């Protein structure tokens, strides 16, 4: 599985912006991403949702570019491009044929200094409200959001990414400009490249375009939490299944034990062959039952999502409780770990075959660890995890200490 010809480079510009790239001459495409270390955890209640709203506004152009020109310039290159916002990152990306990479990178660089015009802000507000409405109709997402907020409580990671209708309605373009100027500082941005490109050429483009951005200090306060452990429920008349989300604490993205945590997530809640699968899905007690490790900056969680009929909800939760208790008592087995490793490694190889897949790991590793990690290093780290490592993780982060949120149909009478 050795990858031939991957070459990593990095440069930190004088204003603090980091440029990283992993060249792969045999790839047919290239991928570019601007990883901005900002998200809903960096907001306060008045401007909740601003990171995500700002991500939309970046596409509305600059002093020189109208929103329509931005879209046309991207589409002229055939790029697949978009952006996403999480609790702690805003990522702008494009997957592109190599001959257009410089052009698309220059466009992203221009867009990273957006005009944030009032008239665009007012139209886009409607789009954001539609997005909030869309997620309300998706209880599988809604339940995760509500559970995250219940788990984190006053911890900033509990802030909703989308914000509420109220926070969006009351937000002003001026507030967004203030947030932008604090958070899109050069030292808070990583420009990452993967696939078929030439480092010297692309680095010069980045330096030329971003080097003049004003230096500014920006940071984030990091704290860990073990979650509230609370339980809550929302009954909705138009929902037909029980959507259950459980969140329990785990190690942070910076912790060496993240590979063990990821394997534990797989052992307990992979789509096939996991404990959830055999105990819940195989027996048709629940249609979906998944657990995943979610690493974050300075903290981390295990998320479980289970969908079942209301009749089965009690029984399903009893079984989950039993699975977690058995794990606490007996730990995992060698055979479970070995299967989980095979699945995780195979997924890792497949994902990294696409420059776009590689970009996400490359950028995330830099954002969280300030470190380049080759695919081989990650493969070796997964292989090195032992049953003992996982069992001591279970010991320290008891899965039974979860916070629970359920969205289900309104009870009759």
């Amino acid at each position: 599985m050795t990858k031939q010809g991957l070459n990593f480079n990095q440069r930190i510009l004088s204003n603090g912006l980091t440029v990283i790239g992993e060249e792969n001459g045999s790839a047919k495409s290239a991928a570019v991403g601007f990883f901005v270390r900002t998200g809903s955890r960096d907001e306060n209640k008045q401007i909740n949702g601003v990171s995500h709203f700002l991500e939309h506004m970046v596409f509305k152009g600059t002093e020189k570019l109208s929103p329509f020109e931005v879209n046309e310039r991207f589409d002229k290159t055939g790029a697949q491009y978009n952006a996403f916002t999480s609790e702690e990152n805003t990522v702008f990306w494009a997957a592109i044929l190599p001959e257009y990479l410089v052009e698309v990178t220059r466009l992203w660089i221009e867009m990273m200094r957006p005009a944030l015009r009032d008239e665009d802000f007012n139209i886009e507000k409607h789009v954001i409200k539609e997005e909030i409405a869309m997620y309300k109709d998706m209880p599988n997402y809604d339940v995760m959001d509500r559970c995250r907020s219940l788990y984190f409580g006053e911890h900033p990671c509990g802030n909703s990414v989308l914000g509420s209708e109220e926070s969006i309605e009351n937000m002003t373009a001026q507030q967004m400009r203030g947030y932008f100027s604090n958070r899109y500082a050069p030292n808070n941005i990583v420009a990452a490249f993967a696939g078929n490109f030439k480092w010297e050429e692309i680095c010069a483009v980045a330096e030329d375009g971003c080097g003049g951005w004003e230096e500014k200090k920006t940071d984030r306060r990091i704290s860990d939490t073990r979650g509230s452990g609370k339980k809550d429920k929302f009954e909705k008349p138009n929902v037909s299944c029980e959507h259950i989300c459980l969140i329990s604490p785990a190690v942070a993205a910076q912790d060496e034990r993240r590979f063990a945590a990821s394997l534990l997530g797989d052992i307990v809640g992979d789509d096939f062959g996991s404990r959830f699968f055999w105990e819940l899905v195989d027996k048709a007690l629940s249609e979906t039952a998944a657990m995943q490790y979610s690493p974050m900056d300075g903290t981390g969680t295990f998320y479980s999502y289970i969908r079942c009929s209301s009749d089965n909800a009690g029984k399903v939760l009893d079984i989950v409780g039993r699975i977690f208790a058995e794990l606490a008592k007996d730990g995992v087995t060698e055979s479970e770990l070995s299967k989980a490793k095979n699945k995780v490694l195979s997924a890792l190889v497949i994902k990294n075959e696409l420059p776009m897949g590689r970009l996400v790991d490359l950028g995330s590793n830099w954002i969280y660890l300030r470190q380049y990690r080759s695919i081989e290093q990650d493969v070796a780290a997964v292989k090195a995890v032992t049953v003992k490592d996982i069992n001591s993780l279970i010991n320290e982060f008891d899965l039974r200490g979860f916070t629970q949120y359920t969205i289900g149909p309104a009870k009759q009478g």
Partner: protein
Amino acid sequence: MTEIIDKHVLSNKMVILGEPMEQVQSAAFNFMLPAGAALMPEKCCGAANVMDDWIFRGAGDKDSKQLGDALDGLGVQRSSGVGTSHLVIGGALEASNLSAALGLYGDVILRPRLQEEHFGPARQLAIDGIKGLDDDPRHKVMLKLREQFYPTPLGRSTAGEIADLEKLTAEQTRAIVRERFNLSKTIFSMAGKYDFDAVCRQFEGLFAPAAVLRQQDAGAVQIGKRGSKYTHIHNDGAQVHIGLMTETVRANDKDYYNARVAVSVLSGGMSARLFTEVREKRGLCYAVGAQYNALKEAAGVAAYAGTTPDKAQQTLDLIIAEFRRLAEGISEEEIQRAKVGLKSSLILQSESSSSRAGAIGSDYYILGRVRSLDEIKEKIEATTVDSVLGYLRNKPFKEFIVVTIGPKEVKV
């Protein structure tokens, strides 16, 4: 970039296709079994979904747990799904484990245990999958739209029908597996890193002896009527989810590439017309878009938009107006953007072994051959403003089938 397509027909007429990819370490594969939703017997809608689950609950000398463990042990990223024409089962994995995985899939196809005790849970999961759609109106509206748009049985829900599933028995389902897992009509496709001769030899050993038992005709579908023009499903949700679909040319038509470019002008990138008019200029929706959607027997352009109730009528009217406006004129720049977008997405997809395995299998089924990427690129390149407008004027979008789910109906 001239790629090779490997092809071999086994003595039992099962077709083996492959696209080698030098730059990858993975292999992806699909068995397209002629057991899709349209091929299920009457009153058995959803049986394919039950089969998809049941056949993996033990096969050959392995029980359910042993089979699952064996697949996991090989690191198989499993994928399966029911389409109109096929039940597709497959996966992706590190290439060195391919042969072992194919051996397991051979058992699943030829020697599934189909034990009584496992039928109940398999059927229950299929029923729960349909119930789950009630909480996913975006997905449900498009399934309901296909049901109305494609003539029966082509439009049959690929999720199934609860009423049919509740009556389905293990014996009926076993009979369907026997009848429909017809190897002479099965297409196997793979892409990535593989040894084609070795796979063919392995398959000749695995599948050819079974040919005698599996020669029944999977049966051609009798195409019936199209559904209603407008269907509304009430749901007190936050948005009205709108699906609409109109007829267009099939993949073997001379105007196929003109149609693809026209749809791309309508909804290719963010500068395309639907996104510009509906979202960028008016802020009516977050999600809006249209796609070319084809079966072997029929094809259409399907559009989706989700919007709050007060904006639903305006959104629907605007989308239909944009479909119709296409024939009035398209600029050279729009055509160029559409063409470069289509070509670029083709090349980006060609880096993924899973995408390629899927694409070559579906090409073979629909066209009877696999198109090379060069051929597709040339044909896209050959389209012009005049050729696309010519197609739009000769075959205008006439009737729209509309389905909505939400708190408010629209006028069609």
